[in-house]
């Protein structure tokens, strides 16, 4: 395989509020290779976005990264100074957000905001910057870019703004693009266009992408690998095909069964009973245990480690591995 670009090792990000510590990201390991697209899936509140912001070191009070390492191009981002981080943000790692309509400053033109991003990271003459902005807007599919650079964000549609955001994120040729649910607030046709654009971006800019989402449909369009998060923990990590064919973790299985499919006849879609766990002082066992239909005694007492269950496939569940193997049977 190709070399590793980003290696998140045992990352812990907690939010300290009056009721206690919210363990939004708890001992998560993640790896993204050069040119690879990793999908990070999970339901709302499982720590996906916190994960993204932790990588950018943009966690703000009362949140704090309390442990772990984030290796990016051989350097630990957690030991960098704020000034060094600013150079990396937008330069080597950049991010696009889920609500394009509010991701741009309403009082400046789209062009000037992209120009600002370029000027922050590159020494360039004024006219060079202008040309670059027009060029990159054209690349992301904005029609007549030399006219539209002068438009204000409210004169763009949602899909166009997301394109412009992607243009801004790519303006300094980042190595890693973090896309936090980039298609969530867009309608389906625009979603498809944005995904198509992300695919071209991947080829043309040769960037690795961390795609965050809760929609397996979107994830399956784009990703090479998938990581599934639940309750602040990574529960499964495998190739896209492996996840769809032989998901091991009960949560991943349940999640996949809850997606409508054309090729399988079902009366009703699967629902996962219960709700997302409280992350304030969670119980010591597996986070999914209260909702899991295979739950064993050990599941509520010990935290299952992430173990190898196949070629490049790991899952955190006591159903597998050497530790006290429970019987794989439905109740």
């Amino acid at each position, binding site marked *: 395989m190709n070399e590793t670009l980003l290696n998140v090792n045992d990352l812990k990000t907690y939010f300290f509020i009056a009721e206690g510590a919210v363990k939004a990201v708890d001992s998560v390991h993640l790896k993204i290779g050069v040119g690879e697209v990793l999908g990070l899936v999970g339901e709302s509140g499982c720590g996906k976005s916190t994960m993204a912001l932790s990588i950018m070191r943009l966690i703000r009070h009362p949140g704090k990264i309390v442990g772990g390492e984030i290796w990016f191009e051989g350097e630990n981002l957690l030991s960098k100074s704020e000034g060094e*981080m600013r*150079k990396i943000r937008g330069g080597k790692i950049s991010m696009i*957000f889920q609500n394009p309509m509010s991701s741009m400053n309403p009082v400046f033109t789209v062009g000037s905001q992209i120009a600002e*991003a370029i000027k*922050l990271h590159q020494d360039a003459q004024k006219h060079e910057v202008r040309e670059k902005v027009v060029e990159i807007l054209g690349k992301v599919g904005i029609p007549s870019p030399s*006219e539209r650079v*002068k438009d204000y964000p409210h004169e763009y549609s949602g899909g166009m703004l997301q394109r412009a955001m992607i243009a*801004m*994120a790519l303006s300094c040729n980042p190595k890693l693009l973090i896309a936090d649910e980039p298609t969530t607030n867009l309608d389906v046709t625009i979603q498809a266009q944005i995904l198509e654009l992300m695919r071209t971006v991947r080829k043309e800019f040769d960037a690795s992408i961390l795609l965050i989402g809760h929609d397996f449909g979107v994830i399956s369009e784009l990703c090479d690998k998938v990581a599934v998060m639940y309750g602040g923990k990574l529960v499964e990590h495998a190739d896209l095909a492996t996840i769809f064919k032989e998901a091991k973790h009960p949560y991943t299985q349940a999640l996949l069964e809850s997606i409508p499919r054309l090729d399988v006849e079902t009366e009703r879609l699967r629902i996962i009973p219960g709700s997302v766990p409280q992350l304030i002082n969670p119980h010591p066992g597996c986070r999914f245990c209260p909702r899991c239909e295979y739950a064993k005694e050990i599941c509520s007492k010990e935290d299952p480690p992430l173990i190898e269950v196949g070629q490049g496939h790991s899952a955190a569940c006591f159903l597998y591995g050497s530790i006290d193997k429970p019987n794989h049977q439905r109740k």
Partner: protein
Amino acid sequence: MDSHLPAGPKDKSEVGKPSRATQLFIVWKKLRKSKLSVVGFGIVLFISMAALLAPIIAPYDPEWTGRARRPPSMEHVFGTDGRGRDMLSLVMYGARVSIFIGLATVAIELILGVAIGMIAGYFGGMIDEILMRITDVVLTLPTMMMLIVAISMFSVRGVHVIILVMGLLGWPFLARVVRSEFLSIRETTFVEAARSMGATSWRIIMRHILPNILSSVIVIATMDIPWYIFYEATLTFLGFGDPQSASWGVLLQLGYPKMQHSWWIITFPGLALLFTSLGFNLFGDGLRNALDVKVRE
């Protein structure tokens, strides 16, 4: 007549995107929608011109003296005061002093209010707590009494002292507004996005948040100008002003004892104050709508 013609094809220069000059034009177009704010703008413009051009257009020198206490006539439109000076010229020269007082005080208020509000709102936490408690303390001080006490402490009676003291006492309201706007805007996605592109705090404050709240700041500043003119006039009227200056307050104070037989001496400076206040307030109200990007024409 021309205005009744149907709009022809637009000039080709109109096709392009708005430049800075045409943006000002858009603000003006929006302002024009409300009759009252146009009236306000007219009054502000009129009084500012009268003040600026006083040395050229005033009929008499303010030091010129003729017969005292003449009622309004063709020769002296506003009459003459107790010392025989021309009231119209005095009111025009008084506008220079009074409007200068208003603008200078607002400048001090802006510097303090915006700086304190934005630091408190952006950084939050302990800094916010300390700055806001100071703001609360200043806000609870009874302004008029504090002004009188503070001005009495200085041995020099000058307009500059009054401006300084009013400015030092006037910022808390603006600071609170700026803080609350910063609190809400710093949470928006575009600020997060700017941070994710590697922008510094300073850059986020100055380029991303401040321009977004400029309309509220401009409106408050516009509406505060007549307040300070009023405060100065009141102070002067009560005898705490600078008798050497010729502000409207001084004119009022001089005219007050003669009110019973020479009504014009106090009436015209009083009306000037009234209209200035009215003008700035109507104009400020119109600006509130006109500067809002989200309100379409």
